[in-house]
């Protein structure tokens, strides 16, 4: 049976194979675990009941105290009247997303076309698109948000999705272009970013339709990044954004299954960042009067430049999550690798 054909001692292959396999597994595992991509993308599976966030009914804008910010020029209103606009989502601090307190305002046919400042231009899609938007809405959104987009289902009971009347075009555009809407898992505590179902143009059509039901603000922001102060943006980001999104924008899990998404994702556009800041989607706070358009623009510039293209002269970013990943690498690759070298150098008896 067993003949004397075996070599008389373990071959070099054996001595290299096991340590080499261990090292490769450790390296690949470490790299796979900690390279970018630990953001909360994809469908979430947690199921926790959310507190129903029914917005207050639309009200007329509140009067401001007698000391509106000093530099409030009267905005130029080109064209005919601008009609009434639901202003509950914005403050009246100058150049913070309120059409009546911005550097310029363009209206047409009783609707706001655009407004803003040199830093951000807020634009509404043309009202003519509302009809196409209604078709899309009926197909894609009405089953959850009600046929009138008012959060009322066919039998008069509350629908799964909230009332969309008076949310403004920026809100609709944000949720649709990030793919969060239409929601896949309606029981999830927060809708996650996923590949969008509707195109950007279609999103604007739906926005036009929603806005036609109850015109509101903010409109879709377009930040003008050329004059941005990235340093100011970095400062603002660390004070206002890093507490949830982390200082490197990697995103992380928050309380009770919610999360702050990663900003390192290249699909996050400047427009979406500005929208999120101004509308405060889901659990994100809403930044209005406390951040001017210029400041929002600076933050957007910082995110698109340094968060999405981090300056990593030191090598692999290890996911931007800091010492946890670094510790694993140091122990597995550093100490582990050196221990394997010890294994080679020394005896095994």
């Amino acid at each position, binding site marked *: 049976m067993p003949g004397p054909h075996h070599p008389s001692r373990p071959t070099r292959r054996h001595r290299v194979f096991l340590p080499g396999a261990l090292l490769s597994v450790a390296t690949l595992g470490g790299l796979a675990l900690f390279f970018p991509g630990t953001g909360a993308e994809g469908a979430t599976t947690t199921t926790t009941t959310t507190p129903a966030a029914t917005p207050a009914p639309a009200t007329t804008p509140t009067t401001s105290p007698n000391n509106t910010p000093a530099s409030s020029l009267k905005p130029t209103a080109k064209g005919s009247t601008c009609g009434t606009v639901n202003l509950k989502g914005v403050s009246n601090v100058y150049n913070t997303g309120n059409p009546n307190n911005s550097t310029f305002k363009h209206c047409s046919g009783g609707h706001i076309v655009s407004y803003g400042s040199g830093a951000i231009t807020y634009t509404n899609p043309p009202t003519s698109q509302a009809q196409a938007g209604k078709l899309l809405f009926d197909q894609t959104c009405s089953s959850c948000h009600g046929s009138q987009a008012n959060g009322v289902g066919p039998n008069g009971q509350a629908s799964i999705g909230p009332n969309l009347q008076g949310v403004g075009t920026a809100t609709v555009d944000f949720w649709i272009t990030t793919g969060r809407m239409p929601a896949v898992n309606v029981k999830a505590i927060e809708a996650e970013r996923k590949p969008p179902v509707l195109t950007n143009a279609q999103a604007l059509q739906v926005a036009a339709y929603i806005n036609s039901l109850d015109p509101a603000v903010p409109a879709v922001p377009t930040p003008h990044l050329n004059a941005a102060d990235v340093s100011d943006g970095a400062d603002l980001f660390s004070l206002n954004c890093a507490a949830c999104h982390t200082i490197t924008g990697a995103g992380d899990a928050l309380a009770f299954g919610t999360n702050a998404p990663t900003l390192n994702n290249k699909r996050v556009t400047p427009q979406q960042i500005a929208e999120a800041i101004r509308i405060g989607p889901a659990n994100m706070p809403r930044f209005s009067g406390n951040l001017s358009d210029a400041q929002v623009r600076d933050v957007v510039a910082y995110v698109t430049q340094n968060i999405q293209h981090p*300056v990593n002269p030191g090598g692999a970013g290890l996911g931007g999550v800091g010492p946890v990943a670094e510790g694993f690498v140091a122990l597995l690759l550093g100490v582990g690798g050196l221990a394997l070298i010890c294994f080679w150098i020394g005896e095994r008896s």
Partner: protein
Amino acid sequence: MSAPTTTPRTKRQAKAALGPYGRAGSIVNDLDDRLGIAKGGRVFLDKIFPDHWSFMLGEISLYSFVVLLATGVFLSLYFVPSASQVVYHCAATATNCYHPLNGQRVSEAFSSTVNISFGVRGGLLVRQMHHWSADIFTGSIIVHMARIFFTGAFRKPRELNWIIGVTMLTLAIFEGFIGYSLPDDLISGTGLRIGYSIAESIPLVGTYLVTFLWGGQFPGTGIIIPRFYLIHVLIIPLVLLGLIGAHLTLLVAQKHTQFAGEGRTETNVVGSPMFPTFMAKTTGFLFMVTAACALLGAFAQINPIWQFGSYDASKISYAVQPDWYMGWLDGALRIMPSWEWTGWGYTIPFEVLLPAVVFPGLIFTIAGIWPAMERRMTGDVMLHNLLDRPRDRPKRTAAGAAMLALLFTLFAASSTDVLANFFHISLNEVLWFFRIATIVVPVIVAALAYQICLEMQGVHGIGRRKRAVVVRRSADGEYSTVASDPRPDDERTEMDPEPVPERIDVEPLVGGAVAASNGAPSPTGVRQVTR
């Protein structure tokens, strides 16, 4: 061989006058005249080092400490240990600075660290090497300590060395914490804030401790940075150097332990000689440890403080953990329920004291007194130079495994948010999981380790290739087993250990090795022993 009495006239005469050992011999003579090193020196060169691979783990610590010293000196040439605020300037066209910081008020410590990273040639590499080797330093200490623990190398006469080692581990952890807090960036500054609060929570003296050290209510006068700098650059390295010296001296005096085996007894050491073999291997290993730190420093970014910004006590980032060797404390702080006691006008924040002061104190105390505890528990007061296999001491192995499992669970608990994000589980559920796991996992691991030890004890020849078993079936259908013939490599051949010869014949080594390559047995004085 005495020095020649006549002055040599020619080169050849001069060379001859040096004696049969040439210049080296005359140097030995000169030194021996003054220092008396010849006899002790030869004993030193003959020193035997056992060869087991796990005995080299301490060398990882030693050599990474050397890397720390060297890289640290470089860094200290450029670092400014001051918390005074300056405005960071980075012109738009400049390439040796970090633009998003331009115009921001930062501390000088932070500014100088960013300058090291961007403005000093090789600075970022050295900075990263310094940080990686600090992580490797503490990591290898733990691994080395585990080896010592599980093989019982801390027993008499080496208890003092064990205590020195535990002290060095404590110092290493503090040194690392202080070191990465020096740049005064947002994340390490948060760690300092937490450290302040932990110290503050100590009853009676806590508030005095922190206002003294920091110079007032947090963040104090900023003097904490230069004080930490001094501690990090001078005080702890000096103490560590002294302790390392003591550690190695004891090792040399008491000689290294070894595993039991052929020719190995309680009263000898078997292995390879110091010169040239061990010196070559260990020097090579020094280069490889340095290389590992350099490669990590080259390809894996660590602590990119420019992305964090200077410390501002009202700013915070999410997903902040301390460096890994402090992670177990952070995890303990997270899972601790909020038990604060207030009474008679006094407050004791147990939710801070217990996980961050009492618990680590307990761990390090148990570690330090373990040799005494084990002596008392086992009644074993004998001197031991042979090591245990971990499986031969199942209770000790189970206890050590449980301790490591506890520390690892706590370390994992410090990344609850990262884990919750990665696995898409609610943060709250992850935290509750760790509250339970911290208690349950060590118990399970201890039980498992104990069982595995017992089983491994019972199995003869575990880890070796087993003889194949031939199963025969008779015509009646009965099965029986027959041990197969031994394979050629089932036999272990090993040489009898011999003392280091005083004089060696160099020729066969460098020229005559060819003759030996045909498998002829080695020359005089050595026998083969077949098991």
